């Protein structure tokens, strides 16, 4: 990954990117460096897994890239947009229009039906979206007969699929997922991962997913390893075996 690549070149290929990203929490004695100068790019249409031990900075990286948190120094880009130049409103609109989220906890709005939750970003933008596209997503995630249900009437796996459908609904630049299978049983987890895979393969989505699970990581095109706020390794076309070996190496 060439750090000095001029932006004009990278924007066309990269959906998201950080340059010398540093995130420091606290001040003075209590200072903790969560990101220690990470420069990394994520190509369009690619499914990336971010791995690493607990506390290595995975979530922090995701949040700073997704416009939910700000870097202490360095830059974060979504497409060609430098996030550090945006105010709260612009960041919000960017999240609405260009970013999709899937969190570990099923983050749905309890008063809205599954359908309304899926359409929420579009509704907030007063857009109706592309009905054919929405239908396609809904049938792909297998929620067609659950659309009028509220979140508390859905299983964990179904809720998480609603979250994925919501992330896809507005065809965002990137989808971020932070341990999306963390709260799911293995069958639902596998279903979700294969769905994410489908989104990348068939719908051309870009997905960046944080995970602990080597099997989950094996669904990605690429696994990036963090430790102490730095990128320490990367595997292309990871398999569970390869990932596990690499994780064991760090454990030593």
């Amino acid at each position, binding site marked *: 990954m060439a750090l000095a690549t001029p932006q004009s070149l990278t924007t066309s290929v990269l959906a998201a990117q950080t340059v010398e990203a540093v995130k420091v929490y606290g001040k003075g004695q209590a200072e903790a460096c969560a990101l220690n100068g990470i420069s990394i790019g994520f190509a369009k249409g690619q499914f990336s897994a971010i791995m690493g031990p607990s506390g290595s900075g995975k979530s922090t990286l995701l949040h700073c890239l997704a416009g939910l948190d700000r870097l202490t120094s360095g830059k974060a880009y979504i497409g060609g947009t430098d996030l550090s130049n945006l105010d709260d*409103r612009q960041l919000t609109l960017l999240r609405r229009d260009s970013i999709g989220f899937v969190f570990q906890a099923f983050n749905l709005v309890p008063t809205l039906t599954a359908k309304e939750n899926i359409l929420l970003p579009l509704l907030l933008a007063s857009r109706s979206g592309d009905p054919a596209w929405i239908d396609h997503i809904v049938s792909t995630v297998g929620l067609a007969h659950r659309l009028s249900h509220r979140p508390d009437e859905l299983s964990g796996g179904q809720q998480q699929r609603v979250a994925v459908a919501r992330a896809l609904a507005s065809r965002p630049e990137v989808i971020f997922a932070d341990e999306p299978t963390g709260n799911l049983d293995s069958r639902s987890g596998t279903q979700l991962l294969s769905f994410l895979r489908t989104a990348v393969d068939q719908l051309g989505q870009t997905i960046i997913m944080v995970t602990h699970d080597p099997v989950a990581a094996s669904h990605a095109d690429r696994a990036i390893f963090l430790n102490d706020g730095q990128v320490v390794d990367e595997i292309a076309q990871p398999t569970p075996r390869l990932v596990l070996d690499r994780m064991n190496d760090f454990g030593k």
Partner: protein
Amino acid sequence: MLRVAIKGILARKLRLAFTALAVVIGVAFMTGTLVLTDTINRTFDDLFATVYKGTDAVVRATGQFDAPQGMGAQRGRVPAWLLAKVERVPGAAEAEGDVLGYARIVARDGRPLGNPAYGAPTLGGSWSTVARLNPFTLVAGRPPQGLHEMVIDRKSARDGHLQTGDVTTVLTEAPPQKMRITGIVRFGSTDSPGGATVALFTLPVAQRLVAQPGMFDTISVVADKGVPQDVLASHIAKVLPAGYEAATGAQVVKETQSDVRKAMSFFTTFMVAFAVIALVVGGFIIFNTFSMTVAQRAREHALGASNRQVLGSVLLEAAAVGLVASAVGLGLGVGVAIGLKGLLAALGLAVPAGGVAFLPRAAAVSLLAGVGITVVPACSPARKASKVPPVAAMRDIVTGSSGYGSKERVAVGTVITCAGTSALLTGLFSGVPDKLAVVGPGALLVFFGVSVLGRSVSLPLSRFIGWPLPRLRGTTGQLARQNATRNPKRTAASASALMVGTGLVAFITIFASSTKASIDTTIDKSFTGDYIVASGAGLMGGLGPSLAGRLNRLPEVEVATGTRAGLVKVQGSVRRVLGLDAPAAFRLLDLRPLAGRPADLGANSIAVLEDVAEQDHLRLGSQVHVVFKDTGPRALRVAMIYGESQPAGDYVLGMAAYRANFAAGYDNEIFVKKSPAVSNTRALDAVNEVAAGYPGAKVLDRASYKAEQAKPVDQVLSLVYTLLGLTIVIALLGIANTLALSIFERTREIGVMRAVGMTRGQLRSSVRWESVMIALQGTVLGLAVGTFFGWALVRASAKQGIEQFSLPVADLAVIVALAALAGMVAAVLPGRRAAKLDVLKAVVTD
């Protein structure tokens, strides 16, 4: 347990502060009212005790009947020849006749001072030459001596820009008099007795102008050294003819003090009623806040606290909040008392200067009320919290409880509402002695019952109110609507607090509008003349009769006739009767005569309203027993029966009967009909020209007469609006509190929505519209209750001349619009807090 309670309070500082504020306002109002009452009572008590210190006995006519509202015993006058007899009584050192009646001082700018119809009285009397008997002290100038001299009180001098040496007009029963002011006086330690205007003349002048020659109102007596008051009084009593009595000075002081208390009690009751309303509204908010916080508490207590501990800690917390809030309210109450004193002064009722009387009673009542209104509403949520399993409580927080509420709730709500309604209607329509004591609690019960039922109608009502929101405001509107409907119990409880305020506002608006409409109809129906000359006087005083005579002689005027008013006791109850110059007045006033002729209304006759005649089985020739203050009990013959109750009331006297029984001869209003040949402007000019010589006389045509009659209604209305505004502010605090708590509970989903693209503006907007929905729900319920109250009172007041029910649609629409606006204001702080929420924290932490 105490520690847990204290910790609970500290953890919820802000929310509790909001809640406490509702209690603080109510308690401050209550304290203010009580302190003011005590202050007024004490200062007047002191005042009268001081100024009548030198009076040992008072000779007066025996009271004929007691008039309500602190007007005291109504009695006639004392013949002047009694003075010589009283002076010779053993033990009497000095005695003097006094006169006190109606007089109005005209200010430098030509306007008469005071507002006798609605404010303190305007008095004229005799200057006492016996220093010990004189309640007034000169602060400038000298006593009145000649026929054209007077002294006036310092307040009138100040308000009227008058000083010693000035010549000004005084209005009495006699034609307007020019008088030179020779001195300025004070009444004890105050500038004027209770804000009244006072003009004092020499005794003969006073007799001629404000009483009758040869008569006194009372004779005051000073005892010889060492003679006790009661001994003196009993000596005097022996020489008095029947119909006269001697009272001790102490007794007169006591009576005067009690009359002032009674006169003030209307104001006090009025203010206490508002304090109670404010406290009740505060109670709704307490209930709501504790309902919400105990659910959250249940989660905290899930680890190991027993049910009794939960119950105890919640109640302790409520008691502590109540105590602190009441203490603060108590302190602020003193400030409120000072403010109310200003309000009274603005109404023309001056309270003498002096310290504030802060008696233990006021403190005790306010503290009890404040703690009670906090602890009692907290009981039910506390009990529930100790019963409901924490897990269920938590689920309740997130999703809310949907549906319409239990059947029991509907039953209880219905029973309470029906009980309240029947108390209200009983109080209004049957002859219970203390109407307010039945109607007030009845109205409160109705509010309470409707608030219980409110939870069951909340859902459909919210859906209805919020129906246009998604159309108007898109997704934010839809979210607001869903949030307002997700916990109908809470929405209903928040709305209830506002319902009380808006309900009362709607009620008073409807009642006022009906009153004005009825006034207009009455005037249109009954008044067949062209102009009315109004005096601005109340029961006492008015226009000198010379004005009506002069108007009658104008060639531009076909007929002008004065109407008089007076208090009598008739068939056992005290009421105002109208005196009319029968044949002339019936050409200007259509009372719908049914039997008898106006010409028959002689000195021993009376006219009776049809309804009264029916009720008392009276017909032409029957006898009616009337007690007059001046002439005592009389039996009058029914000479006429009429059908129109307004403006005449139940009984009408012909001028002959009025003159025969009332010492005073003021015209309250003069009805004028112009000659048909003369143009309106010419006639009006002529009338105005004559009236100009009588300051205070207002010449009104039909339209301005209507407006004039509506004025006091509007004044009362704006006073009530101000006071109810307070309860509405409290209710808004409640809505803001509910919203803040809801937002706190919804932290997570707000985080989600912000994360997926809801802007701060959209979030604020959805909070705002949710608030508007709660406010409108309260307002709609309030309008329903208020309309019912208004309708009931209007129907019950038909006898008082309010015969028409008028629904002021435009005014009610304004109330709805203002409520919506108020909802927006209430949402400002909670909305800002929601917008400041840390999105990442909200989404990531669990």
